[in-house]
């Protein structure tokens, strides 16, 4: 989605030209307009839909729910032994879980993993509209909260305090207990990042709007977009996983070449 062309950026670009952080701002604004422009296009239609939340859409969603979700979540979405209650999880939870392919789950496991999305966008919105009628919960975020044109530095600080311990400082993800893991954030859309913070999917804690305000959330999205779009100045990242991948690389290639050189030096010439 990042490849979406932007045509309206020219006028905004002029404003920050003489500022010392012009380059940074330029990149941020550029990204903001590409990502945000697309997201705006994407969710403006969505919010319009949820705003009206037509009876037809809710009915459609209920049918989809009965056919695809009720086995685990129960006919009234009040939960069974195999799945939690969905009353009050809100449209945001559905948009995240179904929109990233995590739901419906292929099988029970340590956690629901991302996989190809099983429904069309319209179907996801219908499902979300239906679940939203079950009880008050977080709605799908407005496009204005998803534009990555906030304060990337502040977003970075908030990310390091609240998110980096699980998702890695570079957003590369990391292991949790007993087969669970915090996923890589590099290819997650701003809407899904926002929804994950608001709803706390699976074992992720909830970061509600009183903890991390919507503006703060936008700053975090800005930071993640910034580190995704800007190559690491340090050269090869090796996945940004820190000592695991870097150590493995050195053990195999660094020590390997030292062993090879030692063998060569001490072997008798032909």
């Amino acid at each position: 989605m990042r490849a979406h062309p932007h045509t309206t950026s020219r006028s905004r670009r002029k404003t920050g030209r003489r500022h010392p952080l012009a380059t940074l701002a330029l990149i941020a604004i550029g990204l903001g307009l590409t990502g945000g422009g697309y997201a705006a296009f994407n969710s403006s239609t969505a919010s319009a839909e949820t705003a009206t939340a037509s009876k037809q859409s809710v009915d459609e969603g209920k049918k989809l729910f009965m056919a695809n979700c009720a086995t685990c979540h129960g006919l009234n979405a009040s939960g069974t032994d195999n799945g939690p209650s969905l009353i009050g999880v809100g449209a945001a939870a559905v948009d995240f879980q179904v929109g990233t392919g995590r739901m419906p789950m292929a099988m029970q496991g340590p956690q629901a993993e991302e996989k190809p999305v099983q429904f069309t966008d319209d179907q996801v919105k219908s499902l979300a509209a239906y679940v939203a009628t079950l009880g008050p919960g977080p709605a799908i975020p407005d496009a204005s909260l998803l534009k990555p044109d906030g304060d990337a530095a502040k977003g970075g600080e908030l990310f390091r305090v609240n998110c980096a311990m699980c998702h890695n400082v570079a957003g590369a993800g990391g292991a949790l207990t007993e087969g669970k893991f915090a996923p890589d954030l590099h290819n997650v859309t701003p809407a899904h990042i926002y929804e994950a913070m608001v709803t706390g999917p699976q074992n992720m804690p909830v970061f509600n709007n009183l903890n991390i305000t919507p503006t703060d959330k936008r700053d975090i999205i800005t930071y993640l977009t910034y580190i995704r779009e800007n190559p690491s100045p340090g050269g090869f990242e090796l996945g940004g996983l820190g000592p695991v991948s870097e150590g493995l690389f050195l053990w195999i290639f660094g020590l390997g070449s030292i062993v090879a050189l030692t063998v060569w030096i001490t072997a008798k010439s032909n």
Partner: protein
Amino acid sequence: MAQDDNGGSDLAAADSSAVELVRAGDPGTAVLLQDPVENPGFPPHRKRVTDKDPKKNKRAERTVYTLFYLSIVGSIWAIAAYMLFPIESNVGQVRANTLFIGLGIALALLALGFGAVHWGKALMADHEGIDVRHPVEGTPATQARAVEIFQQANEESGFGRRTLIRNSLIGALVAFPLPAVVLFRGLGPQNQNPADLLRHTMWKKGTRLTKDPSGVPIKASDVTLGSVFHVIPEGLNDREDMLEQKAKAAVLLMRLKPTDLHVSPERKNWNYDGIVAYSKICTHVGCPVALYEQQTHHLLCPCHQSQFDITHEAEVIFGPAKRPLPQLPITVDADGYLVARSDFHEPVGPSFWERH
């Protein structure tokens, strides 16, 4: 190959002398084998291609000097890269600068090394030699001479005789490291017992829990079920020793269903309606423990995989940590903000000298 005085071209002689040199009773080396493995000697000498074929010899020579010339090219390239890829405005240039200078220097050093080794292996004289280990101890004559040298030095310098000079010299050498001791001591807490400092944090009765890093106070109603707040004590950001205090006072705040908590009687009023606060400093070696799983209520330390069970007062369920995370007793004040009831009831973080 280099040979020292007692290294022999006569292998049998060298071998037998080596065995004799191992004296019985010498500590650590006194293992005398009754039936030692027979020395198989060297395999038959095999000539290298460079010894047999003058063409190959010539080629090896060419390889070696080409590598040395390549090394010169690398060095010059590194200088050129320094000028061609200057660091002027952005970080991207740092990368190009380091990359190309590094490639030049790497080429210079590697070509030099490979050339030298190839020279040694392919062209330098090729014959096997043996160096025999000899005892570290010198001959009696050498030892006597050494003693004599020391005595003479003592006599001529007057080190033993001029005691004032000797003692003042020893005194000077003892005094010399003292400034370092004092300077390093100055890095530690002054006029305070370090153990006491480790036992207490900034938290005290009535200190509000605030958000890290903004310092905004937290209302109990803000902490919804499944939430995690990273918490610092109110006023931390205004402290001059902010980092030292934060290292001890950092707290993780979570809300669980009150029915999920197994609260011991003496901690009955330490949580507020399922909201619990635990020290974020691991009791193993002090990493920040903050990987909270909201369904399992496990808290994982990323450094050594210690796991704490929040439902059971942060008891250790896996990993090297020895003690549960200390709990911060909390309640709400009149305005609904979360406040500490007191400081932690035990020292936070890893063991130290006075606490095991």
